[in-house]
């Protein structure tokens, strides 16, 4: 099942990245970096993480939430959300709590991951109560506004069909979210997904968070560390910097693409909240954070056939 291009990559290792991310998010939430009353139902409390890790995740989560909110506001929630590689993400429940759900939210991930999430949701009333008329199977969930979809991003034909079967309406404005997912998939297949979404959803936004700048010393070490975990950043080699991130969107049918590294994102987050989180854990070496932030980016693009002003969705 491992992809054949470049370094070998183990699907299970990629799926385990969800655990790592959620573990870091859980710790940050427990420390008070942001509020998420649902993450504890999806992931046990975890060991201490160093301050730069918590701050980095704060920047990632906060920026994505801000942009999702902008999209929901601009479309007055008459829209759809698709989260690729959703893992243990709690966004749906956070939106539900704030009464800001889109008309439909589809979460996509490998069957082993969706199976775990499905089981979690089924057995935890706090999560279950957010779903209306849920039909829950081993690996999938259908409900009025939420679908948990087991699928493989690398098979875009099948993925596309499943997304439409799940109830996605190409006429509704749709936000596609890929938080640290695309980098694990080989370049050609990522292009397929980006192109498919552009071809079928003419009023939409695509957002991705991914590692970049793999060619410096930090990047070398990053790749080595990952290699020893059986995980290869197949997609990163083809899209290693802001320019190529933007170009990939434009080459595959999107418009108005932008890309900024997380240092820039961090600088654009609301200052008073950043000041608040910087007081939580004292960071002894700022350069560690800066270096991390420079090696990840947030990128996006849009298509706006209904002229909703989706180009304004930016930090």
């Amino acid at each position: 099942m491992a992809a054949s291009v470049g370094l070998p990559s183990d699907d299970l290792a990629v799926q385990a990245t969800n655990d790592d991310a959620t573990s870091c998010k859980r710790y940050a939430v427990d420390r008070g970096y942001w509020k998420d009353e649902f993450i504890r139902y999806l992931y046990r409390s975890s060991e201490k993480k160093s301050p730069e890790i918590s701050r980095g995740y704060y920047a990632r989560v906060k920026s994505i939430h801000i942009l999702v909110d902008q999209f929901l506001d601009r479309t007055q929630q008459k829209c759809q959300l698709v989260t690729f590689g959703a893992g243990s993400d709690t966004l749906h429940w956070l939106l539900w709590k704030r009464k800001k759900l889109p008309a439909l939210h589809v979460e996509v991930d490998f069957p082993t991951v969706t199976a775990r999430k499905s089981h979690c949701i089924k057995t935890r009333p706090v999560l279950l109560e957010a779903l209306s008329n849920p039909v829950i199977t081993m690996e999938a969930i259908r409900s009025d506004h939420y679908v948990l979809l087991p699928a493989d991003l690398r098979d875009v034909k099948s993925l596309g069909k499943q997304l439409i079967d799940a109830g996605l309406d190409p006429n509704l404005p749709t936000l596609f979210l890929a938080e640290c997912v695309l980098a694990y998939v080989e370049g050609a297949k990522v292009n397929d997904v980006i192109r498919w979404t552009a071809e079928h959803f003419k009023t939409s936004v695509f957002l991705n968070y991914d590692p970049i700048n793999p060619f410096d010393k930090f990047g070398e070490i990053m790749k080595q560390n990952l290699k020893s975990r059986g995980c290869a950043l197949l997609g990163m080699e083809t899209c290693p910097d802001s320019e190529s991130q933007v170009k990939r969107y434009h080459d595959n049918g999107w418009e108005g693409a932008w890309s900024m590294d997380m240092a820039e994102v961090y600088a654009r987050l609301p200052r008073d909240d950043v000041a608040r989180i910087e007081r939580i854990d004292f960071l002894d070496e700022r350069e560690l954070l800066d270096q991390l932030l420079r090696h990840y980016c947030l990128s996006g693009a849009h298509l706006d056939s209904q002229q909703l002003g989706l180009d304004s969705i930016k930090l």
Partner: protein
Amino acid sequence: MESYGYALSDATTALDIDRTYIKGYYRRASANMALGKFKKALTDFEAVKKARPKDQDAVNKYNQCNKIVHQQAFAKAIAVESSKKSVAESINLDTMVVEETYEGPRWEEGEMAVEFMTGLLDWLKDEKKLHRKYAYKILLRSKEIFEVQPSLVAVSIPDSSDRFTVCGDIHGQFYDLLNIFTLNGLPSQDNPYLFNGDFVDRGSFSVEVILSLLGFKVLYPDHFFMSRGNHESINMNQMYGFEGEVRAKYSQQMWDLFTEIFNWLPLAHLLQSRVLVTHGGLFSRDGVKVSELVDIDRNRQPPEEGLMCDLLWSDPQYIPGRGPSKRGVGVQFGPDVTEEFCSTNGIDLVIRSHEVKEEGYEVAHGGKCITVFSAPNYCDQMGNKGAFITLSTDLKPQFTTYEAVPHPKRKPMQYASPLFGLLS
């Protein structure tokens, strides 16, 4: 003088008979106040306040008492540090038994032998643990050495050697420390060393590093020097791994002893009266004399400002003058500050550490302020080189740089290593 004790028992008896006897509560509370039992008094004043909410006197008394209770709690909290009994006094080496089966280095009678240290380095390299008895012995002995030293230690390059090596931050990177000894030779009377703080935290082998360094201090007290870094403090050790590592490998008690030893580490060294070596850097004000540094009362946690704080926390900046530290503690000092300090004190050079540098070192302030950082590929992430400085009797610095060496796969203490950075 009223017999408060009797008043107390009278009131209590009355209250036993009649729980609603408000005067009783009042009397008992007053008696307790007079006896200094403020917490107890507070409970009774609260009862009076509840029963007589409109009674201004009752409310006032309650508020007064409450204030005192809070003040006392605060005073107790800040007094804990100075009045705590030394952990060192409570450790009895004689009662510690070393099992027959222990195959590691031993130090029983007499002075520490060189073979103990060489054996220790090999033992630790194989990820084995030094027996706690010998660990405690090293700690206790090193504490005795440090606590009689001034806060600024004057060092001369011994006649027996022709050089002196200064190393910067190690941060628990034990295998890189071993590499320094491979490149530059083991410490000895002919090969003196100064380690300039931040021995622990972040790296996974902080215990091994600190035991080795303190061991060499015990072995060569006049040829091996250690200076305190900002990471030799409770807050940093709790956040960045050292406390967790000591608790996991040894015990809470040993961690307590480490905090005492760190409190006694000197804050700076002056080599041949001409080179100042300290972890952070120079000061928030002009006119600081080296003699002031000698007398700093250092047996404490680093304060948030002042000379001791600056020594452990400040950073050089390229532009003249001073600026607020980007770290939020200490100050940033420009080339003019270095120049002023050096000329005031007849000093040629300031060597400091505290900041990671890509090449392991950086020369700034026209050659008068040098940063040396000895932990390569810091945090398994930064890809930087490490460096150390060798000074011969002419005190001209020579730099040796090196890359990181492999180490056993061990995630940093208490931190799961996320797959990498912010990935996944």
